[in-house]
């Protein structure tokens, strides 16, 4: 899962994990960019390299290049020198000499987890958009840079995983605003062209509710919502008809709130449309949650919204027997 900073990527990862767990799959969430707020949302301590259970069917761990490297060196009979490498600062030089080496260590670990079949689904909370592309292009870059050896093997195994849609897909997350949408489009093209990884549906997060299909503009009280006077009059009429008198101040507050939401909604639907035009892949839309910081109840509500939409996708997203990374 990839997306620009601030679009709610981690929250969406958590919601998707809940959806999968509900349908009986065992899920692992892999955090690759340090502290992400995931642990907070589930009310647990910060994640560690060792796996922990977040809730029924959902485990999580954080994958750091350093920890992945020591593990990998041990596994390749180089454990003895691992500590010396670290202390000498040579590791930093090697990692610099081989761009993407840190990424490949993490991706290699993910590939190992996938092949172990310990989980039905592995969700990777990837680095923010721009970095996500370099994160996922690292194995290809390495194949060119490094001629031989175990790193090369590791890189080609990861490339094989990424280019097989039944094993790995990338789901982009965005909000319906210009900059995140543009960045999502650029990332999508970069990923398809340069990584050759399949894109799953794109998630548009943070949509104000009246764009969520059922409530149309018309339900929000007829006249042109930008005509403030007319809107106030309409609210006032409704209040009288309902036998529920409102003060002039209340009417004007309501009208302000309704116009503001309408204006933002228009920007949002415009951006969501632009996104569909540029990226002809299914969109899953998630509501903006006005009523609370992200905690487990909010994640469950987003999971409900995802489930409802995933069911109507023609190509089932979740539920294949084999492990899969996103």
């Amino acid at each position, binding site marked *: 899962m990839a997306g*620009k*900073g*601030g*679009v709610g990527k981690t929250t969406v990862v958590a919601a998707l994990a809940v959806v999968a767990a509900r349908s009986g799959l065992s899920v692992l969430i892999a955090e690759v*960019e*340090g502290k992400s*707020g995931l642990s*907070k949302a589930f009310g647990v301590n910060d994640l560690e390299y060792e796996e922990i259970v977040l809730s029924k069917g959902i485990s999580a761990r954080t994958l750091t290049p350093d920890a992945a490297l020591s593990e990998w060196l041990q596994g*390749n009979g*180089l454990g003895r*020198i691992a500590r*010396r490498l670290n202390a*000498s*600062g*040579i590791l*930093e*030089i*090697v990692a*610099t*000499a081989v*761009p*993407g080496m840190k990424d490949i260590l993490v991706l290699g670990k993910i590939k190992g987890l996938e092949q172990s079949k310990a989980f039905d689904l592995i969700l990777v909370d990837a680095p*923010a958009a*721009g970095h996500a592309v370099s994160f996922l292009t690292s194995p290809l870059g390495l194949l060119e*840079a*490094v*001629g*031989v*050896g*175990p*790193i090369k093997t590791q890189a080609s195994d990861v490339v094989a995983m990424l280019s097989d849609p039944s094993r790995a897909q990338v789901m982009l997350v965005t909000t319906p605003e*210009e*900059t*995140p949408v*543009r*960045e999502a489009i650029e990332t999508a093209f970069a990923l398809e062209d340069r990584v050759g990884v399949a894109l799953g549906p794109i998630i548009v997060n943070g949509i104000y*509710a009246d764009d969520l299909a059922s*409530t149309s503009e018309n*339900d*929000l*009280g007829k006249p042109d919502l930008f005509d403030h006077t007319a809107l106030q009059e309409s*609210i006032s*009429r*409704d*209040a009288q*008809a*309902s*036998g*529920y008198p409102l003060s002039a101040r*209340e009417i004007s*507050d309501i009208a*302000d*709130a*309704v116009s*503001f*939401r309408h204006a933002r909604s228009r*920007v949002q639907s415009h951006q969501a449309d632009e996104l569909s035009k540029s990226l002809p892949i299914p969109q899953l839309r998630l509501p903006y949650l*006005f*009523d609370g*910081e992200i905690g487990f109840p909010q994640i469950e509500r987003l999971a409900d919204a995802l489930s409802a939409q995933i069911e109507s996708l023609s190509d089932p997203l979740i539920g294949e027997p084999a492990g899969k990374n996103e």
Partner: protein
Amino acid sequence: MNKADLGTSAEHQPAITFASLLAESHVIICAGSGGVGKTTTAAALAIQAARSGERSIVVTIDPAKRLADALGLPGLAPDPVTIDEHLWRRSGDSASGQLSAMMLDPKATFDALVARYADGVEQSERILANSFYRSISSALGGTQEYMAMEKLHELSECGDYDLIVVDTPPSRNALDFLDAPERLLRLLNNRVFRVITAPARTGFRAAGVAVQTLVRAISRVIGTEVVDDIVAFFRAFEGMEEGFRERAVSVRALIAESTTQFVLITSPRRDAVEEAEYFAERIGDHGYRVSGLIVNRVHPMFGSEHGDTLRSRAAALRGLPATESAPASARDRLSKHLDVLADFQSVGSRERHNLDGVQLRLGRGAAVAFVPFLAMDVHSIEALDEIAALIFAAPS
């Protein structure tokens, strides 16, 4: 839209305002996590400075395309671009102001640095052609940050600008730029590679053997070609470390000057506010202090009624039986409208709660501004003007 009460009560009134901060600064470093409007805010600050008569420049890393277009930025450029005054000057503005912008090209900046400290063209060409150097200059974590600081130093030295606003890179760690010069120096001064590349200097054969073992092990993993490249780089770089170290010291001195100010940018989300406070702490650990906080995208509030109260009123209204005089349609519509208001009151009060006391926690004296979530996205100079007006509005 109502001007909402954002908790700037008299007892924590800031000692400085953004207007005075702008007037007294030579350098403003904008820092914050991704997606909080850092680039936009940096541009708004530079525009405001230019409009008040300063020669200002905004240095940015990767602006959204439409913002770059709005500013007339052609793309990556090694040199600053002067922005046409018709785009940003308004009637009544001081005539002496100038606005420039540049998009940082980290690799070109690094190349220039190498050329500057190399002992002749031959050494610099050898370095520029080395593939390990190419990795350092384009892929090493922290290089972008270091080059942003390097460019800042250069722009500050040249004397063409009264104010330089730096938009820090969207890095994995938003404060990498503080450590970037040290990290690079550490890499360039690595003892082990110094031993390999300059054996004459060591005199310790034992050390040499241990190092050779390590290098052989590394070669097994990443291949000998890569190792050869590294060695070639360190040979070529010989003699330049001193220049780089001096440069890093003067970059640090510039950041420490009293006319260099840190401005944190955040959104009112709880996680973002917490992160901003953490940044402020880290900046403090480095011996610098935060002079300003700009909170972007604060949801507007409309009136003073509580979200929960409004929501229960809406629910009660929906629960009333329909009568001939009070049709369900009117009640439905009205209760939905009440819910819309309730939504904004809830999110607004939560955001204000997140921001409560933030000023005190950042330290007294920091200027704080709240920029409401605008009904439109920000991609034009007019919108930047609006943001600047909100930042620089005298606190009410």
